[in-house]
Structures are given as structure tokens and as C-alpha cells.
């Protein structure tokens, strides 16, 4: 697949980088001329995936690396985002993606991470190999219904 534009960032599995990751993706997305709501949707999904890698993939270890890749398709309307870690992986992906399912109720995790990714993106796929790591693949097409009024009133 040829993309109009691609970017990749690699960072440590520290919670400080959750904000960095979503802002980096949001900044990269601006060339698609998205409305604020679309940017907020992608930011939320990226935040969920990166948080999962930090908490579950690396179980809080800060020495792990997380790779976020984005590709904007040639029509400049569709963005693909992958979030990859080399953490512990997920034994049962289907169960992990069930709303409210969490392995960390002790940490007050809501179990809504994958549900939020699915709600805010058009497509979410998860590939995981226990002991090797996890990759979350997400896709979103922007510009379905341009809400110019919303953009204008909220952009300043």
C-alpha cells in the first residue's frame, strides 16, 4: 500500500508518553483537514491503545518500547494507526475486547479501553502473540459529514 504520508514514533513505555503519543498523532492528522471531533476520536483511541501497552503489555515496566505508526491514504481522508509493543501479549484477544473485561480491577481500570477504540474508530483489529507482543491496528475515514460550524466555533 502506498500512502500519501506516513510517520512513525518510538518511545519508552512511560505514562508520560500517553499525552505525547496522542498529540503527535493529532498533529500529523491536521493535514487531512479533519473536524475537531474526528481528531478527538483518534486521540482517544491512541490514548487507549498506548495505555494498554504500558499497563498490560509491559505491566508497568518503563524499559519497554512502544511504536506508533500512522499512514494517511492518498485520498487524504483515511488514516491508519498502529500501536505496537513487545510486551507480554494477550492470551485471549476476544475476551480482552469485551466491554468491562479487565485483568486489573485492582488498578480501577474500567475495562472500556477496546470498547472506546471501537466506538471512536471505524475499524479495530488486534494481533497478539503471548510472550511476544501486541499490535493494535485502527482505521478511520474523516470527512463523512463535515461540521464546519462546529469547527469554526471551537477552533479558537
Amino acid at each position, binding site marked *: 500500500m502506498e500512502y500519501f504520508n506516513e510517520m512513525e514514533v518510538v518511545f519508552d513505555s512511560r505514562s508520560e508518553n500517553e*499525552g505525547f503519543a*496522542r498529540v503527535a498523532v493529532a498533529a500529523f492528522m491536521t493535514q487531512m483537514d479533519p473536524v475537531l471531533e474526528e481528531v478527538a476520536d483518534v486521540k482517544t483511541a491512541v490514548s*487507549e491503545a498506548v*495505555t494498554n501497552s504500558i499497563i498490560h503489555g509491559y505491566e508497568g515496566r518503563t524499559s519497554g518500547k512502544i511504536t506508533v505508526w500512522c499512514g494517511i491514504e492518498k485520498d487524504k481522508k483515511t488514516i491508519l494507526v498502529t500501536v505496537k509493543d513487545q510486551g507480554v501479549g494477550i492470551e485471549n484477544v476476544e475476551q480482552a475486547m469485551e466491554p468491562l473485561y479487565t485483568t486489573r480491577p485492582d488498578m*480501577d*481500570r474500567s475495562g*472500556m479501553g477496546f470498547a*472506546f477504540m471501537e*466506538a471512536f474508530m471505524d475499524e479495530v483489529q488486534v494481533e497478539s502473540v503471548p510472550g511476544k507482543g501486541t499490535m493494535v491496528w485502527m482505521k478511520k475515514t474523516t470527512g463523512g459529514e463535515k461540521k464546519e460550524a462546529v469547527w469554526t466555533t471551537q477552533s479558537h
Partner: protein
Amino acid sequence: MQYQIKENCLTIFLPAEVDHHNAEEIKREADKVIEEQHIKYVIFDFGRTNFMDSSGIGVIMGRYRHIFLLGGEVWAIHTSERMRQILNMSGVTKIIQIYEEGMM
């Protein structure tokens, strides 16, 4: 964490962005205050908040469990449309009250 206590009511002024990174501090400090000050009502003030992911939902749910056992209530105020969308989607609105301007 920025907060204010009036009698048995704790208002937590949430930051601009509520994610896993800053949720940890809010949880820790809120639980300490709830316990030490005999708090029964917790109000999450979203006035400054423009981003929240499911970590924020975990913060609210966890404080609710705590407060519910004490016979109290949890409220959300100054919520933007986006924040109400997140709260509704998560189902947390079944257990907390959202106060909207002009509601009473």
C-alpha cells in the same frame, strides 16, 4: 489534584486532560481526602477538561464504589458535549448524576 471541601462534599477540579498518567494521582489523593475528611458526596468538575479516556471512567467508577458504601453520591458538573458523550458511552451515567446548567 485541585480540590475543595465543603462539609462532607469534595469537589475535584479535573485537569485539562484526564488519562492514565494523571488519573493515578487523582485516585490516590481523592481516596485519602475521602477517608480523612469523612466525605459523602464527590463532585467531578469538568470545567477545564477537554480530554478524557477510559482511565477517567475508572477514576469515577472507583470513587463511586467507595462513596456508595458510605451512602453517598457522585456528581459530574460543567461537562462539555464531548465529556457527556464519553460518560454516556461508558455507562457510568447509570451510577452518577450529571448536573446541567438550568436543570434545577
